[in-house]
């Protein structure tokens, strides 16, 4: 019964992951990705890792996918973009890399399935208590470093997503200088580019 459930879950996960990389519409791909994450969470549960399953649902299918959804809402893809995406999927350049990656996949499948160990996983439950004891015991340094990584990610994301400052102080000063220069009559000695442009504009106006 457990095996049948695992086969079903694995089929759903593989099918939805294939759908993710073949959709042209970003929202559809994201929904399939969420389906894949939920199927994987159930697979974790079947493998005796209920804490990891809960984390997969909460953090991955919850938080990370909400980030994706908000990003796609900001991108505002139009119908033309989706059609362009559809055409790029059907392009001939798609097949070469896919065939090469499939060859790698078949090699890996052959190596794993030819080992003939056939050791069944005993359903030994590893609950959240044991994971927590390990996290704050031998792995405490890794947890601290992970907190550094999250802080760096937060600062980096804030800095990168900031809108570009258009009217900085230096820009305003430069504009003021340009205005002063263009108001002066152009002399032959100090004829830099800006003044030449303003002079031509004046001639055009005249």
């Amino acid at each position, binding site marked *: 019964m457990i095996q049948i459930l695992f086969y079903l879950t694995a089929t759903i996960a593989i099918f939805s992951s294939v759908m993710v990389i073949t959709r042209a519409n970003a929202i559809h791909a994201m929904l399939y990705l969420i389906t894949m994450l939920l199927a994987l969470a159930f697979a974790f549960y079947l493998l005796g*890792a209920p804490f990891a399953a809960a984390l997969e649902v909460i953090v991955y299918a919850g938080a990370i996918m909400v980030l994706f959804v908000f990003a796609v809402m900001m991108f505002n893809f139009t119908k033309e973009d989706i059609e362009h995406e559809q055409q790029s999927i059907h392009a001939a350049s798609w097949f070469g890399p896919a065939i090469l990656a499939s060859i790698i996949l078949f090699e890996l499948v052959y190596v794993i399935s030819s080992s003939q160990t056939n050791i069944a996983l005993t359903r030994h439950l590893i609950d959240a208590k044991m994971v927590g004891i390990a996290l704050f015991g031998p792995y405490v340094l890794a947890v601290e470093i992970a907190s550094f990584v999250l802080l760096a990610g937060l600062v*980096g994301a804030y800095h990168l997503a900031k809108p570009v400052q258009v009217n900085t102080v230096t820009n305003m000063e430069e504009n003021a200088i340009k205005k002063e220069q263009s108001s002066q009559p152009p002399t032959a000695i100090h004829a830099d580019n800006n003044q030449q442009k303003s002079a031509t504009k004046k001639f055009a106006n005249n």
Partner: protein
Amino acid sequence: MMPIPIEQGLLLSVVLFSVGLIGIIARRNVLFMLMALEIMLNGAALAFIVAGSYWQSVDGQVMFIMIITLAAAEVGIALALLIQLHKRSTRLDIDELAQMKG
């Protein structure tokens, strides 16, 4: 109660990894490449969980938590980058973005 053989868990993780790899190579939209990257990360995480279940040790799940932490940080920064790239190329086409100067 037939338990799951270890090969089948590893096979699922390998298939997911390869599908994500195909997605990264074949797609030209950076957003879809990011989603394919998430599929690859989940394949690797499943391999860790299977190994932890096989050795009956906690380390597999601890590594899974590290992977999820890294994925969260990576997605945050990558989506911020995509928001900036969206101003240069509306379609987020990697071939267009590769020809940026400066």
